[in-house]
């Protein structure tokens, strides 16, 4: 199933940088069979993305600490490295060496399995995040649908850890978390469906390609402003970020389903929620903000400078610009999420469910219908 970096490039686009091909050719030069070279290649992109995800979390944790400090007119972490950049590492190390407690009356097996079930789907979803035309682990045809279905596995892990802790706050937190993520998954999926309708494909690569025509102006956010807002609100709710952090509301539930957790198991929840935040931001940038696209198409720039798009140097620069743009857009959204966390109050559970079912769901259905109508009326602008 896994076709790493660049096997399924669309025929229309020039092949560009094909890291896999060069890697396997280099290995075959040492006398390895193509199959063995392929086998050696397989773990590389996965490892790279895993490392990228974890580093992304470290950066996000540092940003969260610094921005929250700035919002509250504090200084924030200062002594661990310049500007406290090593603080997230220190946090991680602390959690790593902390005692791993399993409460006496808890269900040991489910208690251990819960955090794993929360983290694994989130990391698996990185499979479909593209950083460039050929820079993703797997260009699976079901693309964005894979993410939606994987993120629906998460509530099971939350329910499991809430139940296994044998603590009423944990159980309530787990139930709230599952209820919240089920309610917000539907408007989320419907707003993704409107995008899919416009790009005629579920693949994340095709969705970005459809937005590359005229740079900034062709991004989906102009054609889907309502969908963009719905998606962002639902993504925040799925990540349990502050306006919607009811599952772990300190004043009501101690820490929700995480109450009994300590050490590395708690770190898994922590890691999972931050990976999910970065992933959601990346997907917003892929779906609505043109993914790896530069505000001015790179092809135009290359044309003005009199360079061919297929020249090796231009290819390398294009690839780098793509990665930088994807990460930049994602981190702007992460910044927004952090600011929202430190400036907005928490909603009540009835307000949360009302917002999800009575407002966002009908709104996203209307958005879908309007998109379909516009697609039929103006096939040029809405991907007919």
């Amino acid at each position, binding site marked *: 199933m896994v076709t790493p970096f660049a096997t399924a490039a669309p025929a229309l686009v020039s092949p560009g940088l094909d890291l896999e091909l060069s890697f396997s050719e280099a290995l075959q030069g040492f006398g390895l069979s193509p199959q063995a070279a392929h086998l050696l290649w397989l773990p590389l992109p996965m490892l790279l993305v895993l490392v990228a995800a974890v580093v992304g979390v470290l950066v996000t944790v540092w940003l969260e600490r610094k921005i929250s400090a700035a919002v509250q007119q504090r200084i924030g972490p200062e002594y661990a490295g310049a500007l406290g950049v090593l603080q997230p590492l220190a946090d991680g190390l602390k959690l790593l060496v902390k005692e791993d407690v399993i409460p006496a009356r808890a269900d040991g097996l489910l208690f251990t399995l819960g955090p794993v079930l929360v983290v694994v789907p989130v990391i698996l979803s990185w499979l479909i995040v593209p950083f460039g035309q050929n820079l993703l682990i797997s260009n699976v*045809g079901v693309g964005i649908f894979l993410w939606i279905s994987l993120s629906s596995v998460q509530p099971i892990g939350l329910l499991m850890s809430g139940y296994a802790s044998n603590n009423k706050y944990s159980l309530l937190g787990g139930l709230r978390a599952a209820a919240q993520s089920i309610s917000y998954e539907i408007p989320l999926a419907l707003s993704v469906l409107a995008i899919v309708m416009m790009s005629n494909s579920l693949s994340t690569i095709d969705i970005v390609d459809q937005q590359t025509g005229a740079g900034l102006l062709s991004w989906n956010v102009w054609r889907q402003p309502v969908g963009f807002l719905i998606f962002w609100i639902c993504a925040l709710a799925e990540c349990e970020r502050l306006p919607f952090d009811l599952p772990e509301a300190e004043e009501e539930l101690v820490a929700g389903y995480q109450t009994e957790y300590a050490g590395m198991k708690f770190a898994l929840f922590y890691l999972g929620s931050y990976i999910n935040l970065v992933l959601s931001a990346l997907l917003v940038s892929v779906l609505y903000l043109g993914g790896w696209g530069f505000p001015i198409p790179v092809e135009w720039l290359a044309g003005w400078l009199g360079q061919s798009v297929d020249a090796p140097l231009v290819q390398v620069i294009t690839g780098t610009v793509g990665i930088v743009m994807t990460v930049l857009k994602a981190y702007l959204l992460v910044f927004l999420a952090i600011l929202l966390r430190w400036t907005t109050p928490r909603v009540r559970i009835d307000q949360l469910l009302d917002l999800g079912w009575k407002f966002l769901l009908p709104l996203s259905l209307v958005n879908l219908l309007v998109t379909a109508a516009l697609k039929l009326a103006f096939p040029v602008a809405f991907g007919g």
Partner: protein
Amino acid sequence: MTIAASTQLICFVALAAVVVIGALGVVLLSNIVYSAFLLGGVFLAVAGLYLLLNASFVAAAQVLVYVGAVNVLILFAIMLVNKREDLAPIQGLPLRRLLSAGVCAGLFALLVRVVVTTPWAVPGPAAIGEGATERIGEHLFTDYLLPFELASVLLLMAMIGAIVLARRDVQSTDLGTGAAADQGLIEKARTPLLVDQGPS
């Protein structure tokens, strides 16, 4: 045997083992919460089998619908009524178990017979892979339109039924007995709602 083929075989054996053992656990374990979680595992393994058959859309839909919706709802139902009480002893339990085991064995024998006697087209038609999503869409809106729509009507009926059963308080009369709804009964959660109000 190539590397790809042997990987596929290993995956198939592992997934099949998870499906069989997990399904047995769902039925045989006495703790209903374990059964529900194992059911989720079985659904996931079935999704893995679909992936092995090159049906990635069906696999993703399986995860979304069965694991993400059905199984989570089952867990919700179990956890919201989680009283940690032992079930009331049932009379003649061994006999009942024997009977149900007999019925299950009979069903299994029937299925085995069907599997053995059916002339399977091996190897089947070539997998259409990524084109499957479009083909499924085409079929759902042409020759399978009626079953598709009927399924949605069925779901709507189930939903309305659930709301009517759960929200007795919005009814002026009790559906079961026709008597005026008693708000006190609704507040007392322990009392069954469908009480026999006739002379007994």
